């Protein structure tokens, strides 16, 4: 038992290290491996140490689970990753609920259950079940089985509230021993299942990742609660870890979308995505901060800077040069892509960058740089808009159709800095901003670059 607990502590330490490493691009893969080793240690320790285990049952369970899990994981397309995470998460929550339920049923007759234990059991079942059903709805929404649009009906909030009250009531009946009917327990399970559904369906498809992250945090809490039920350190620590870090991650994701968590969960504003309001079709985009941009850049080898009129307006040429110098000091290759009509006069960008003393051999014109984007890790678009608008390639009705553009979208990641979602000189929307590999960093170019410089230095 001592060694088992030691193994759990070791596993927990590996989880901590794993999660830490997962938050930086360079170390992420090793982080995942470390965490999975931790898991292996925890499983082996458990199997070895507890007596009276039904090894056959466990073996079957693990084999079946492994087959199902790995099939899913290997088959799924890259674009379907988020829904996969949702499903897996649902199973995790379900497992916690089941364990707690087993404990409940196992000890039900013996009236061994103190109020604390029964309370944690109910908490675990409640959260686990809610995670289970909620995750499946999230999956369904992303996969298209359920409409991705927010499903809203009148009195939704009231019904949810009533269900929560119901669960609380039933739970306290059990805990305080007012009534020990099994039906009460089933009632809780049922209500939790329903609640998982009603809480998730009003949320739009674009917000789903946040919801999944939140549910992930819940499943951590469920595991931790189960740990209290079983008085098991391993579960408690790991569950709490996942619960807390999941919540932080959820918050970070919300911040990236410029929303509050409450707004995501209860907003149900009937809109799928963040949109710009001025004219034309709406573009949904990801927005981020300079320190995240710094991290993306940290993992890059080759960076191409694309200056545009906005850089000139912000008079941010020196700041851009500083950032480029810093990137070079970090061992990266940095080039500048100069579009022939960037800015407002022929050679505008040249004048600008010459002022900042950017060496000429780093300035590449359109013909030279376009083939380079393919093997470029990050393109940083600084106050450029029309000259990187992919509509010029395919949108025959566009006023810029036919103009050669800088193929920034071909690079692995595109960081776009401008102040708003407003269009540029040509007055048209830019679909680039909504691309999967594009991250917007809003703000005045000079300010943004100064911050980015600081963040790069601090990495």
């Amino acid at each position, binding site marked *: 038992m001592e060694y088992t607990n030691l193994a759990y502590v070791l596993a*927990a330490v590996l*989880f901590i290290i794993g*999660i*830490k490493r*997962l*938050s930086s691009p360079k170390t992420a*893969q090793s982080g*995942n491996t470390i*965490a999975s080793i*931790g*898991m292996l240690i*925890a499983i082996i320790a*458990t199997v070895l140490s507890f007596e009276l*285990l*039904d090894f056959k*049952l*466990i073996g079957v*369970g693990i084999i*079946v*689970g*492994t087959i199902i*899990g*790995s099939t899913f*994981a290997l088959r*799924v397309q*890259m674009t379907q*990753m988020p829904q996969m*995470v949702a499903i*897996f*998460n649902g*199973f995790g929550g*379900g*497992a*916690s609920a*089941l*364990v707690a339920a*087993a*404990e409940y*049923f*196992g000890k039900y007759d013996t009236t061994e259950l103190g109020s604390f234990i029964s309370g944690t059991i109910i908490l675990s079942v409640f959260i686990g079940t809610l995670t289970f059903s909620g995750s499946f709805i999230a999956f369904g929404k992303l996969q298209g089985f359920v409409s991705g649009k927010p499903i809203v009906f009148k009195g939704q909030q009231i019904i949810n509230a009533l269900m929560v009250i119901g669960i609380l009531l039933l739970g306290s009946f059990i805990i305080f021993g007012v009534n020990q009917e099994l039906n009460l327990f089933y009632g809780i399970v049922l209500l939790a299942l329903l609640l998982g559904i009603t809480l998730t369906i009003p949320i739009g498809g674009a917000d789903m990742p946040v919801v999944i*992250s939140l549910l992930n945090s819940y*499943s*951590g809490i469920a595991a931790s609660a189960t740990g209290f039920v*079983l*008085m098991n350190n391993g579960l408690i620590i790991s569950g*709490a*870890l996942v*619960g*807390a*870090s*999941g919540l932080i991650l959820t918050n*970070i*994701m919300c911040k*990236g979308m410029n929303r509050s968590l409450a707004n995501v969960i209860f907003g149900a504003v009937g809109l799928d995505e963040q949109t710009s309001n001025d004219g034309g079709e709406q573009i949904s985009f*990801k927005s*981020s901060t300079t320190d*995240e*941009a710094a*991290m993306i850049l940290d*993992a890059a080898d080759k960076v191409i800077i694309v200056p545009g009129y906005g850089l000139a307006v912000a008079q941010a040429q020196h700041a851009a040069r500083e950032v480029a110098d810093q990137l070079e000091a970090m061992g990266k290759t940095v080039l500048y892509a100069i579009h022939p009509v960037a800015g407002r006069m022929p050679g505008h960008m040249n004048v600008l960058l010459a002022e900042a003393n950017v060496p000429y051999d780093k300035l590449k014109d359109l013909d030279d740089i376009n083939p380079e984007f393919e093997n470029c890790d990050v393109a940083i678009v600084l106050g450029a808009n029309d000259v990187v608008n992919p509509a010029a390639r395919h949108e025959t009705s566009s006023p810029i159709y036919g103009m050669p553009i800088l193929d920034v979208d071909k690079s692995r990641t595109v960081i776009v800095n401008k102040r708003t979602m407003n269009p540029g000189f040509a007055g048209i929307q830019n679909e680039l901003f909504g691309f999967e590999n594009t991250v917007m960093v809003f703000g005045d170019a000079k300010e943004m670059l100064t911050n980015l410089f600081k963040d790069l230095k601090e990495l």
Partner: protein
Amino acid sequence: MDMINIFTVFILAIFVGNEIITKVPPTLHTPLMSGSNAISGIAIVGAIIATKIDGGLGAWLGLVAVIFATINCVGGFMVTNRMLKMFKRK
């Protein structure tokens, strides 16, 4: 086991959880979520223990729990790994 100690562990774990995630680039949001989700498959430990609970129902619930938790762990780590492979430098 001492309840207070367990609780202390819980609180500290929450602090650690809080601290270890500070800044994550958006590109890593999904892998990180997926990876930590896989860790929440730690429920498998509970599931394994649950199989020993006497009484058919408990054991059977335990079996299902083991299957679920394994799916969560195995699938989670594998899918995370696949995602992260995309970040490898060419």
